[in-house]
């Protein structure tokens, strides 16, 4: 691993060089939304005021959002689109469709999202590996970017605030320059396309600046969750009444799964057409919080109530993945915190598991309804 210095003025020229090699994708600001002053609820008002971001194809480098927190949807959408055709078929044969796979450079991926991809790598390369995911993953160059936590980030608690693997280059965004980590030979090749922009000689001052930045960032986290206790608490509180309360408020909208960097479940349906038009086997993002997910032939449902499905969701994130891989499959990105309309998310569920007071709509709802 090498660490190089890149002056800010040389950043766009470097992108210019590498974007000739592949499509460049990065976070950009999304439009829309009402003026935040009209929102009575301070939780959502503070959120609505902020710009939202999305990974998009970049034509104009100045559109790249450098100081973002999370995008609405994590970079999993690049590897597995929300809905895509797996293959075309007719009565004789099938033809695989890998049209979603292109050579891409994905810039601006934060440490939590890189960890998210590393978790998906494990899940999609088990005994029956997923060619659609792996093919797109192979063709996507990951350029990480450092970030600054807002009050919903808790990646320090999940130990996903720093990154040791899973990137080709990683840019730490300091005031006057970038420090660039080379994480793979593919990343090194990119540097070799424009070696003159990079400086290998880091001064004592540069190192000190970096250490100061890291310490400051380390102290900037406002949300903390004690994950070491949670696997046990998931077991001990398996029948706790708060699951029913959360289930009663859950809108079963599935948004938590859509925005989660490690949710990977999908459904597969065949579309057939009249005449000679070939059929399609569609694959789209699914969620275990939806009723159809646990339904089997004959209409029986293993998890007929929302509370059971929510508990399954959290069992996966907080316990099951820990038993198999030694860490939670939550990367602390905070997306569930800013997405769930009734505030069933990692923080409020962890609070409920710990027996702490829960500040969330679903808890308030339970109190209102019981009255």
């Amino acid at each position, binding site marked *: 691993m090498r660490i190089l210095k890149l002056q800010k003025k040389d950043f766009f020229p470097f992108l210019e060089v590498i974007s000739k090699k592949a499509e460049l994708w990065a976070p950009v600001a999304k439009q829309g939304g009402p003026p935040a002053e009209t929102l009575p609820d301070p939780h959502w008002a503070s959120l609505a005021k902020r710009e939202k971001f999305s990974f998009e194809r970049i034509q104009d480098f100045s559109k790249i959002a450098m100081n973002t927190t999370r995008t609405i949807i994590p970079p999993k959408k690049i590897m597995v689109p929300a809905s895509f055709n797996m293959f075309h078929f007719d009565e004789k044969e099938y033809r695989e469709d890998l049209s979603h796979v292109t050579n891409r450079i994905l810039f601006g991926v934060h440490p939590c999202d890189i960890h998210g991809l590393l978790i998906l790598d494990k899940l999609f390369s088990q005994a029956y590996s997923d060619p659609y995911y792996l093919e797109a993953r192979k063709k996507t160059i990951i350029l990480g970017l450092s970030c600054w936590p807002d009050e919903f980030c808790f990646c320090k608690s999940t130990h996903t605030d720093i990154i040791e693997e899973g990137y080709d280059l990683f840019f730490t965004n300091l005031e006057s320059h970038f420090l660039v980590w080379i994480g793979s030979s593919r990343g090194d090749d990119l540097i070799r396309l424009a070696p003159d922009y990079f400086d290998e000689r880091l001064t004592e001052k540069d190192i000190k600046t970096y250490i100061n930045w890291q310490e400051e960032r380390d102290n900037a986290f406002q949300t903390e969750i004690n994950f070491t206790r949670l696997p046990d608490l998931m077991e001990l509180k398996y029948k706790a009444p708060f699951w029913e309360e959360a289930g009663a408020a859950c809108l079963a909208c599935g948004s938590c799964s859509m925005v989660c960097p490690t949710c990977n479940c999908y459904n597969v349906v065949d579309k057939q057409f009249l005449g000679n038009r070939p059929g399609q086997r569609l694959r789209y993002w699914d969620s275990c919080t939806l*009723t159809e997910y646990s339904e089997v032939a004959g209409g029986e449902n293993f998890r007929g109530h929302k509370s059971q499905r929510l508990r399954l969701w959290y069992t996966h994130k907080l316990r099951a993945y820990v038993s198999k891989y030694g860490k939670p499959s939550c990367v602390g990105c905070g997306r569930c915190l*800013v997405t769930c309309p009734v505030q069933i998310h990692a923080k409020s569920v962890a609070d409920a598991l710990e027996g702490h007071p829960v500040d969330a709509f679903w808890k308030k709802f339970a109190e209102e309804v019981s009255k």
Partner: protein
Amino acid sequence: MAQDKLKIGVYELTGCAGDALLIVDCEEELVPIFTAADIEVFLMAKSDNRHGDLDLALVEGSVSTEKEKEELLDIRRRSKIVVAFGNCACVGGIQAAFLDKKNWEKNLKKVYGNHDFSHSQPVQSKPIDAFVKVDYYLPGCPVGKEQFLSTFNRLLRGNPPELYRFPVCIECKWQENDCLLNKDILCLGPLTLGGCGSVCPDHNIPCFGCWGPTEEANLTSEYRLLLNKGFDVAAIKNRMANYSGTRIAEFFETFRKEKR
């Protein structure tokens, strides 16, 4: 072989005929549709309609007259499979937005006075499953073209349709939209059946619920959530009743009793 083709009828009760029009609008697929099946009845598209036994009846619209009720019962008797075709047939549509019977009778009187209904006696508008057994529900206002074509195809092959059962929010997130409900906008996405491609939220317009409620629509939770966001009861009730009147009448009835 011609005699193996399924006999199909497309019927329109009270509605805007938008669902029947959607079939006609499938321009590239029209010839395959009419080739693959014997379309026995389709008032909008042909003149020689034969009202005999059918393998499949697509019924659009809700029942809002005694005459329509009789027609529907007759269709059911003659058809092996009945599909509720579009929002009005599935859940009653806009014409079923009145939540209680008293109000409906009052409004009928207000609009028509003591008019003598010689043609057919009006009844409070209801979805078709209030009168007959429905085999499949194809939701939408109008139904989605893609969902119609794949359903039609599956039915022709003797397979049950594979319909989307998830709420609008799923497709809305696929489009990476910022949640409107979280911006305190009265959006019915979480309660409403998807399949529309979240067209309204894609254009920053909240979901009005035109595909009708999902099987698990959590009316109580969203209702309380909207109250918490500062919306008044009438605004929430009106929006929710708009397209799915009969499906949510029960909820508001329980709620009214609770209040007393």
